[in-house]
């Protein structure tokens, strides 16, 4: 473990949701064992804890952004706050100006222009993050974003930085990061600084569409990428289109996983697919992990 080679950061993303990111990441976490720190950066719909049995050893609140609050005693109902608010976040309810917390973006403009200083900005608790010991004998950093919270990019960055810090302190070889779907803030945050991106896709027109969009983003970061095609046998034609695309873009084609219910069977037992019996998928994921490790040396 450790040695002179610096720690490598591997991010697993997909563009489209539900292609098997978390199942793949969990399998790699099992295969890497004590050599990796695991980070679940899909803070908006985190699932990895279901397979990793975390003990929530450390829990901390995460604050990010602000929320305007109007002190009704000082408010003279002049309405300047509502006039300047671009987010229509200050409606009049029963004759009082009230901030709607779901619409307020915490820009603080209203507080700056209120003539009676009736508005204060409070720090907003947007979620929690955790450091846990997990069943692989290592550590996982994970989080839960509050409902309707903004800034999932910032919580993602927090989780990732904590994981990197732990990896350095404990001299680990890898940080394994489960990313989130889409191409916006959270994904941008999980990609920055990564050494390798694993794109998990499936041979459907929508997954290919989303893969192309998210890879455009990956290219901006100039990160080496590889692709795993899940359920490759449900559509050979689209599968071949994906392979053509990978070739064109110079993306490493890591593996084709057959359509099996083994992922789901494992999930029901709270396990990663590489932990239950022998399946074709498990075998291919073991090979995939070796391929990824090799391409990082």
């Amino acid at each position, binding site marked *: 473990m450790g040695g002179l080679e610096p720690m490598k950061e591997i991010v697993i993303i997909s563009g*489209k949701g*539900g292609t098997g990111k978390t199942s793949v990441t969990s399998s790699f976490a099992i295969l890497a064992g004590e050599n990796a720190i695991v980070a679940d950066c899909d803070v*908006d719909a985190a699932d990895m804890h279901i397979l990793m049995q975390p003990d929530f050893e450390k829990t901390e609140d995460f604050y990010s952004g602000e929320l305007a609050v109007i002190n009704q005693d000082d408010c003279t109902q002049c309405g300047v706050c509502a006039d300047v608010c671009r987010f229509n976040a200050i409606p009049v309810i029963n004759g009082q100006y009230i901030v709607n917390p779901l619409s307020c973006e915490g820009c603080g403009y209203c507080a700056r222009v209120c003539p009676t200083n009736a508005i204060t900005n409070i720090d907003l608790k947007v979620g929690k993050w955790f450091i846990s010991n997990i069943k692989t004998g290592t550590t996982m950093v994970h989080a839960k974003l509050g409902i309707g919270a*903004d800034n999932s990019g910032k919580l993602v960055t927090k989780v990732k930085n904590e994981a990197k810090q732990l990896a350095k302190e404990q001299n680990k070889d890898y940080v394994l990061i489960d990313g989130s*779907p889409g*191409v916006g803030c959270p994904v941008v945050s999980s990609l920055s600084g990564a050494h390798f991106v694993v794109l998990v896709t499936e041979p459907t027109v929508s997954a290919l569409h989303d893969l192309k*969009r998210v890879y455009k983003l990956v290219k901006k970061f100039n990160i080496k990428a590889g692709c795993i095609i899940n359920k490759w046998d449900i559509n050979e034609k689209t599968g071949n289109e994906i392979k053509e695309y990978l070739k064109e873009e110079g993306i490493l084609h890591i593996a084709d996983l057959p359509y099996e219910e083994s992922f789901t069977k494992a999930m029901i037992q709270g396990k990663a697919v590489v932990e239950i019996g022998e399946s074709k998928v498990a075998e291919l994921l073991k090979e995939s992990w070796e391929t990824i490790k090799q391409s990082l040396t």
Partner: protein
Amino acid sequence: MNIAIASGKGGTGKTTISTNLASYLAESDNVVLADLDVEEPNSKLFLDTELIHKEDKFKMIPEWIEDKCTLCGICQKVCNYHAVIQLGPSILVFPELCHSCYACSELCPDNALPMIPLKMGELAHYKKGNLDFIESRLEIGQELAVPLIAQTIDYVNEKFSDKYIKIYDSPPGTSCPVIEATKDADFVILVTEPTPFGLNDLKLAVETMQELKKEFGIVINRNGLGNAGVEIYCEENNFPILAKIPNSKEIARLYSNGNLIYHQIPEMKASLEKIKQHIYKVWEGLNR
């Protein structure tokens, strides 16, 4: 009426339900479907509709006018997003961090930061028969989905009266973009799958809808896969299960090719009919 299709977890079948339901309802009603998953919109792949209108969508950002600026530093001080930074003798604007609150622009004593439009995405309007379909896509590199979602909803509300059934295909998750996409909904359809991940994320989605005080119903997709956890959860909490769509390789194949399901799978059509009846009931309730 406004119907949002949402789910905590990605890939559970939101788009499948949205496109099939919209097409099925359009056989009898005027329907508009809006794809609000602006980061990864793909409803269009399943719809045979014709483009009738396209427009760029902009967000407003400040532009620094050097000649007018006295470097007083107010803009940097009032920006809570660190999108305006004073660096030596110049002001730098970081458009991707800007929330378009206008504070820097309007509080600048010298009018040195007028707001200008920046393209953040494209909206396209397609049509066939009774079905209007609106899609917006975020430019790659733009990080904030919410303003584009909001503008797309505005477009739908300007063009279509309340007599239309408006279906909003939401992004996954429970954060800001989902709130924006579902906050005007009269009814929310939560799509899940009967697996531990599906259940975990369904609970998050339910919490979100309860927080927003939305009436909702649940569609279980890929029924037969996984376990009974989702059904038990719904029964215990008296959440209505609107329909169960079978786990089938044939459906997966049709989907993978970008085809609608219900023309070829009778169980799908029956499921859509159940959802339609439920929607009619909610609609009657609204009109009462």
